[in-house]
């Protein structure tokens, strides 16, 4: 019995909603103890549904999953004891203060007396909310709510932490602060973190490994470096000064690589066929043909390129809401 196993495993995990599509369509994954696993995908890809299943809030239609060594269907209470979760949209009571939230959450976990006070104070300090602890949550900023949400997920000292889009809607400063805390939890406390996100940068910076999900299926998995290396060379994107010359510009660029989808409207893009920096050659070739370029840009491979490579779409704007109708227990 792997009672202190901090891993997350899923095999052929499926969730089909009534009158709906397969929101999660056969997911296999394994997250190692102490690892930060980034689950990256557009809105509606099946990220939140997967989290709800792994946190025991939604039974899978088929397949199996073990979290912390416990089966999510047959051993729900044991799973819940091992995990902490901050689900999508910080679900807080606007009429309660931060301290009152912690008081309630500790009580639900059976923590009482001095231990409750000590734990609450410690967590408020850790997430930087000591000064705001006795203010009603309705006056909190988005970042403060998210930090309180994280503190609430940690009151019982979980071994595994699920964070469902924890930084959506946050400003850069709040986002960075949350990343630092999550990184510290994994590295110093050995907490396994399963993090869903639609932000490429978040997955890239924070995650040890990334799973890219689309239409309920994992389309790529690995370390961010490995995934980007699989894509290979850089992409060059050019915006013709004269829109009528788009075809001619494309013809020149395609001498250097394969055509791909540009990031901006009106642009022409190719993925270079060699990693050698041949931007100068491209500029000379365009100049030789007498083509004027309004904007020329080189993109190093990103996780978005990985997503594009696997799905034919960029991550931004790839939302498919119809695939994940309502990830609430129905």
């Amino acid at each position: 019995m792997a009672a202190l196993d901090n891993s997350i495993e899923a095999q052929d995990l499926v969730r089909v909603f009534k009158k709906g599509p397969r929101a999660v369509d056969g997911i296999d994954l394994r997250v190692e103890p102490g690892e930060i696993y980034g689950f990256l995908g557009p809105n509606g890809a099946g990220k939140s549904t997967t989290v709800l299943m792994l946190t025991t809030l939604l039974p899978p239609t088929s397949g199996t999953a073990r979290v912390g060594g416990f089966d999510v269907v047959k051993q729900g209470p044991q799973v819940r004891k091992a995990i902490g979760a901050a689900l999508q949209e910080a679900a807080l009571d606007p009429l309660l203060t931060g301290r009152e939230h912690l008081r309630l959450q500790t009580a639900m976990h059976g923590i009482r007396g001095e231990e409750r006070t000590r734990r609450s104070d410690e967590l408020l300090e850790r997430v930087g909310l000591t000064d705001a602890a006795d203010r009603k949550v309705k006056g909190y900023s988005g970042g403060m709510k998210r930090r309180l949400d994280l503190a609430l997920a940690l009151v019982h000292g979980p071994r595994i932490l699920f964070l469902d889009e924890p930084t959506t809607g946050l400003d850069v400063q709040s986002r960075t602060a949350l990343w630092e805390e999550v990184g510290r939890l994994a590295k110093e406390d050995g907490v396994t973190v399963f993090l869903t996100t639609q932000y490429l940068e978040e997955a890239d910076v924070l995650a040890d490994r990334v799973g890219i999900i689309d239409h309920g299926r994992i389309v790529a998995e690995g370390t961010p470096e490995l995934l980007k290396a699989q894509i290979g060379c850089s992409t060059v994107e050019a915006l013709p000064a004269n829109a009528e010359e788009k075809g001619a510009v494309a013809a020149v660029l395609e001498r250097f690589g394969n055509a791909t989808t540009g990031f901006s409207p009106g642009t022409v893009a190719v993925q270079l066929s060699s990693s050698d920096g041949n931007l100068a050659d491209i500029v000379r070739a365009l100049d030789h043909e007498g083509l004027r370029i309004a904007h020329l840009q080189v993109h190093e491979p990103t996780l978005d390129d990985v997503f594009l490579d696997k799905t034919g779409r960029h991550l931004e704007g790839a939302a498919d809401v119809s695939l994940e109708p309502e990830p609430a227990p129905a």
Partner: protein
Amino acid sequence: MKALALQIASLARRSVIRTLRQPAAVFFPLVFPVLLLAVNSGGLRAATNLPGFPTDSFLAFALAVPFVQGGLFATGNAGIDLAKDIQTGFLNRLALTPMRGIALLAGELGGVMALGLIQAVFYLTIGLIFGVSLKSGLAGGLVLIALASLIVLGFAAFGAYAALRTGSTEAVNGLFPVFFIFLFISSMNLPRNLMTVAWFRYLATANPVSYLIEGVRSLVITGWDAEALALAFGVGLGIVVAGFSLAASALPERLGRT
């Protein structure tokens, strides 16, 4: 057992805090029934001249009504708070803890009952200030508060059931007028034996709300009427059991956890 008690106490505390921090949730259940009482006791005073009317004070006769109306407001308070928790995902947060389902219901309803107690004391105080004397005395006043709390608990349980079943604040709000119809087709404004329209008397007799009102009323204008009290407590208890059973049955599905 200690853990369950802590969970119930903490959830009840939260329920009271959030209610007290919403002035409208406290103000209207206190003031609206008293305003209706003032209007009715002024406008229907002539009813006391009917032969066989049990008291010469319509205010004393009608004082029972706010206690039941307070229960109707409790339906809204309990149901809307719970539906909001479902809609915002707060219930999911609680579901991820070792919280027992029964603690959620008992805690929510405990908080609503605390407000119900405040309401009952307020209505009684208003009645006493305006000259109503309790025929059952001080002990009757305590029984009245106990009965009022039972009524609040019963209606609140139905509110909780509606919230758990639908997860919608709109659906819970929709219950309010339905329950109000029960109030209006009861013996709230006239004793059943003085109702001359047969179909209305029949409906009022079949309506459990009549027995709740008559139980409270008996303590105010009659004294100790064992039959009225037994019926009121029996009906109240029946509503509590029915509402609580329905809510408890809807809870596992709503919590959704494995």
